[in-house]
């Protein structure tokens, strides 16, 4: 019996070990005798795989001795696999980095800072700051995204509500929300999504004048009354039944509800363009407006950067590639086929791709955008955010208390960093 119990547990451990080690395969292949170098390039977005290959091919044209192998790992496994690969000394030479993970990688010295002086004024400052740790820049911004309110014109017309103006406020938003809600048809104004802080809570927190984390990354902002105001924006909508309750949104995500005509508005990112452009329902029914203004205007800006592994065997070649990916030439290529390029002045192609939508909104909002809040172990307190705020979203705990508990828990986690 000991054997059966132990082997069952062993099986579990072995399975987990095996899955953790699965990432070890993607080692950067080395140089050959002729000075030919192959760089591995880790990315997570399948829809961008083709344009990444195009960019790699373009790079090889100007650097004939370097070829780039684009390695796709789906988003759900990307960070798990990356951690295992880094631990095993087998990280790709160059790979995509995001805000929440950046400081973890930089502070542990597993990605290399950029040694050369470069002109960073060509990128939005918020993104340069996001990828700066301890005064050193570690990655060149590749793309960027901001948040806007996608709205269903058909539902606005049916409720005889004017489309959102560019300078609308929280009060305007609330008025529209009340008018758009139609319980008989099962239509809600908006879905107060709990799982996507980037599109929901973080925006209203900064709009209310609050903050998520102090600039030095040591203190939680959730005890601040203004931060709580930003959270209450959403819990009020649920309480007024202008948003579905959390149970409903757990079963059916707000995105699906919006695409089924059950939500009049959806707070979403510039990245939703691809989704709404191909969905048969939303294709010709939606448009986008800026986020409403609270005490101030704010939208969360985030973007992916290209970084180099600290252990790459070809640091010079890796840097050449990162530099190329951060250039205006690469951004021009990216903007035609992918997300908004981070390189200033190359974004118009992206806007022109959908003349039927006011995509300029996403670019205009960069002026007042706030960087995605991060620290060294962002994932730890992001879990705490969900644990505590779930209770406020269900109404089980008043939002002030949930926020206070969260602030305490988050401060403990920040102290451990």
């Amino acid at each position: 019996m000991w054997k059966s119990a132990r082997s069952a547990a062993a099986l579990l451990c072995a399975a987990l070990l095996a899955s953790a080690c699965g990432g070890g395969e993607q080692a950067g292949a080395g140089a050959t005798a002729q000075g030919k170098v192959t760089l591995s390039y880790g990315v997570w977005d399948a829809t961008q795989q083709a344009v990444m290959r195009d960019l790699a091919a373009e790079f090889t044209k100007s650097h004939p001795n370097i070829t780039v192998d684009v390695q796709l790992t789906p988003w759900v496994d990307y960070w798990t696999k990356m951690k295992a690969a880094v631990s095993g000394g087998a990280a790709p030479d160059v790979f995509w980095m995001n805000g929440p993970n950046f400081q973890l990688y930089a502070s542990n010295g597993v990605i290399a800072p950029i040694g050369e002086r470069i002109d960073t004024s060509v990128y939005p400052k918020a993104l340069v700051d996001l990828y700066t740790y301890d005064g050193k820049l570690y990655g060149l911004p590749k793309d960027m995204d901001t948040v806007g309110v996608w709205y269903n014109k058909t539902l606005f017309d049916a409720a005889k509500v004017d489309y959102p103006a560019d300078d609308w406020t929280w009060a305007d938003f609330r008025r529209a929300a009340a008018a758009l809600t139609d319980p008989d048809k099962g239509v809600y104004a908006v879905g107060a999504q709990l799982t996507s802080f980037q599109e929901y809570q973080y925006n209203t927190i900064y709009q209310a004048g609050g903050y998520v984390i102090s600039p030095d990354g040591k203190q939680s902002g959730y005890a601040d009354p203004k931060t709580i105001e930003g959270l209450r924006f959403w819990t009020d909508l649920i309480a007024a039944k202008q948003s579905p309750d959390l149970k409903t949104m757990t079963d059916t995500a707000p995105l699906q509800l919006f695409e089924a005509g059950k939500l009049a508005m959806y707070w979403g990112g510039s990245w939703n363009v691809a989704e709404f452009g191909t969905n048969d329902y939303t294709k010709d029914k939606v448009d986008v407006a800026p986020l409403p203004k609270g005490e101030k205007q704010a939208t969360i800006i985030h973007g992916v950067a290209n970084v180099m592994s600290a252990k790459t065997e070809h640091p010079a070649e890796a840097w050449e590639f990162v530099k190329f990916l951060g250039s205006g030439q690469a951004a021009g290529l990216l903007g035609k086929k992918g997300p908004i390029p981070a390189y200033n002045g190359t974004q118009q192609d992206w806007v022109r791709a959908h003349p039927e939508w006011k995509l300029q909104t996403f670019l205009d909002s960069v002026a007042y955008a706030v960087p995605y809040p991060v620290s060294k172990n962002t994932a730890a307190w992001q879990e705490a955010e969900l644990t505590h705020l779930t209770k406020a979203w269900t109404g089980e705990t008043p939002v002030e208390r949930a926020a206070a508990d969260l602030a305490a828990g988050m401060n403990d986690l920040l102290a451990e960093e």
Partner: protein
Amino acid sequence: MSDGGGPARGSRAEALWGYAFIAPTGLGLAIFYLWPVLQTAYFSFTEWGPFGGHTWTGLANYTRLLGDPEVGRAVLNTLTYTALGLLGIPVAIVFAALLNRPGLRGVSLYRTAFFLPVVTMPVAVAMLWRWLYNGDYGLINQVLAVVGIDGPNWIADPATALYALVVVGIWSSVGYNLIIFLAGMQAIPKELYEAASMDGAGRVRQFFRITLPMVSPTAFFVSIVSVIGSLQLFDLVFVMTGSGKAARANPAYTRLQTVVQLFYERAFVTNDRGYAAAVVIALLVLIAVLTVLQFRLQRRWVHYV
């Protein structure tokens, strides 16, 4: 006398051959099972950096474990699920007895139908049930609406979530258990039933007086396997509650979080691998204790012929 060494040499050679034959399995077991277990046990006394590298912290992980409310909750959820999962055994016995009736037509069709969930990927099963359980668009609630019942959000409602999960767990394991019980039932000598019917015992009485006691060793085996499997519950919860971060935003999460899920979160989400190792070692101990307990209790209900 002179050939006294013969048999000894022969048996030694035989033993060597024996070892050679079990070597592939034995080595595989040692490298892929035993070694990771030992390593995990060692790691449970250490603290890990997110990219490897660890320092010895003694019992720190275990003291933290004892004071962690999430551990208590996860253990309680897991034990409840495990206990309720045992209800699958009587279900399997009843179906096995029905399928074992002499002269039943289309037996292989039924067996295939019952076994289908077993050979289906757990993730696919979970996805399917997720849709069935959907509060607004799920088939279950649409059927209930026909008879005027407004069904809950089955897997997002703390009152129903765990039970909804148990139903899926039983549904997907009943086929496997049923096959084992069928084998057990077919090993029961026909004479017993013949004698019983001569004495005037009906089908129901035969079931309770002959079939049940005779399959009790099978039931014991099934309950051991089922308890161990239930204690390791992960994939169903992972997919059905909303994988990754989203799971914590499920209002029923406090009722659904299992030990292995907690392990997953600590190891792969919050970069706390030493603590995760302690969690999984605690699970190992729990499994061992429950298994010993079951062996102790078997005397009371298992009949060996």
